[in-house]
């Protein structure tokens, strides 16, 4: 038997924080690729500390629903899961975006744990960002054609340089595909700042996709206000919204995109899970479903 455990942050205050985790887990459950699919949270239950004992399978694939390699994926999750002998070297990710998986035991259960890199740094995440951009424009009967730019928004933090690396990695990948006239990385807490997003584009239309797992204060309050899309988040924001002569198409958190389930599966498959045709099933099922949780 093989189990998939999706580990995510969760929240004591915001009931929507865990919604994408459940949505992606449900989508993977429907494929039947795993005997068990479990969710676990840092701030909700089951906790990282106790989820493994709720699993029956001997082979467990743990996929962090986090954006970057860093504090949570390298310290908190391995510690709380009690992964035997965890060492960051196990991931062999010198550039901060290349973690794949490590196979370890765990302190409180006799199982084999395949601890995967975060979804946010998987190459398939670039597809999700593009799909998210297409979703937000298609929702308003617009097509991404000539004259569209893409801004990928990250949190950014001086405490963890990997936080920005994931953003640059996907911006570079998407730029290379030539789907958008311009692609730019912007951040909340470091330069270049999302506040000045329109300064970085010549394109009239800019799709703005925040690389966040769940919608919350940052994606629904801070970023729309910082960009000048709204003066008061409580009144909402227009899509598209006119700012400094540009049209901003703001998508909300990329992590709510249904195709995210594919990245979770890719992570587990890369770690050796037998996922059968689940990846194809999810890709097909999510191609016309814009937003998880809608």
């Amino acid at each position, binding site marked *: 038997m093989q189990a998939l455990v999706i580990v995510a942050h969760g929240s*004591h205050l915001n009931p929507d924080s865990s919604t994408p985790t459940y949505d992606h887990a449900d989508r993977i459950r429907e494929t039947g690729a795993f005997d068990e699919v479990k969710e676990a949270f840092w701030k909700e239950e089951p906790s990282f500390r106790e989820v493994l004992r709720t699993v029956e399978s001997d082979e467990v694939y743990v996929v962090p629903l986090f954006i970057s390699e860093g504090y949570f994926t390298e310290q908190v999750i391995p510690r709380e899961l009690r992964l035997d002998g965890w060492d960051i070297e196990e991931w062999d990710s010198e550039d901060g975006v290349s973690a794949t998986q490590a196979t370890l035991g765990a302190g409180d259960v006799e199982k084999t744990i395949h601890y995967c890199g975060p979804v946010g740094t998987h190459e398939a995440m670039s597809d999700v960002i593009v799909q998210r951009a297409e979703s937000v424009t298609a929702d308003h009967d617009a097509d991404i054609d000539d004259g569209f730019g893409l801004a990928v928004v990250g949190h950014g933090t001086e405490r963890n340089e990997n936080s920005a690396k994931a953003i640059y990695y996907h911006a570079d990948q998407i730029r290379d595909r030539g789907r958008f006239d311009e692609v730019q990385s912007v951040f909340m807490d470091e330069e270049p700042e999302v506040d000045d997003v329109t300064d970085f584009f010549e394109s009239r239309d800019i799709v703005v996709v925040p690389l966040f797992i769940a919608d919350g204060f940052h994606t629904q309050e801070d970023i729309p206000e910082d960009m000048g899309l709204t003066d008061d988040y409580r009144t909402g924001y227009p899509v598209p919204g006119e700012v400094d002569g540009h049209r901003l198409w703001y998508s909300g958190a990329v992590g709510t995109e249904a195709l995210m389930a594919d990245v979770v599966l890719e992570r587990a498959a890369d770690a050796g899970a037998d996922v059968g045709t689940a990846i194809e099933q999810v890709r097909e099922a999510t191609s016309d479903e814009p937003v998880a949780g809608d």
Partner: protein
Amino acid sequence: MNAPQFDALLSAAEDGIEFEGLLVEQHGDEYAVHILDEEYTELAESELHEVATDHSPYVTDWYYWTHVVDTTKADRLAFLQWLEDADGLSPPERYTKLDDGVTCHWGELAITTTVDEDGIRQYDVRHVNDIDHDAADLDTYDDPLSARDLTTYDDDGRYRPLKTAPTLQSGWTFPALDAPDLLQTIEYIYPATVPNWQREREGELDISHWRDTAERQTGIYEIIEEIDREAVEWIAEACCVDSQCTKRREWQYAEDDHLAADGGDGEYPCREPCSLVVAAARKWTTLENESEKTFQVDLTLSELRQIEEIIDTVAEGRVDEIREADVYEGANRYRARYLRAKRFDEDGELAAHEVEE
């Protein structure tokens, strides 16, 4: 006993069956059966069928636990057996009880087990407050995944960050779950309670006491290691009693240093300070870093008592119970507004003067 069950019996007899008072062996074309102290030997297949039919509860019970409850996880088996009070009773005795339904409480859940003529159990899960309601009067569900929505908000529509808080909403039922779906439903309503309960029964509960938990923290929670033992008593008294959580607190300050606060009477144990307690402890750690001062505040004796009533009312979560015009309650809104109008200064603060020592 139905035909597939007898076929399963025949096929398992090749390797021998030994289960809860039932023993079946195959010797060539013949079978031997022991049921408690009754013994049948040299049975042809048709005779075996006759014996099995006469003792149908033993066969259907064996079939249920070995073929329907398909799990290798000891905690799941133990929980299902506990639900029907299986200890020490023979299958026929248990079936008599299950005919009427056996109800057990798990946190705020009432779980009722019944059995059909083929020994297949059915489980009804609902809030204990709904135990006397007809299922037709409740919202009915059959998919365990629906349980997630039922646990997200309380009856007042407020988010429940702690799954085991005694604020589970009522008015619903899963009236006809099978064993795997029951276990999944329980897992969503009270995560990890079944494995922890079983570990405790086996004497193997891995408790992480306050000191262990605090010393493990990093990042913004690293500071909780600094909080005094006395404050940990207050934390346990504030957060971990039955009125706040259905788990029974088993963690102490340290393994050999127990807290005086009541750990509660919950069915399942709490094996370490949860994330809510850790997050709150971080706030209390910073608050406890402030030094005490002496303030002079002018109040009547009744006003002092009123402030105590307001704190009590908030702490007990009774604010909504105080009637609009019940000005005899100190925590009544008009009473509180009057006190504020009289005693707060233009900055919206209680007029207090620090008394220099």
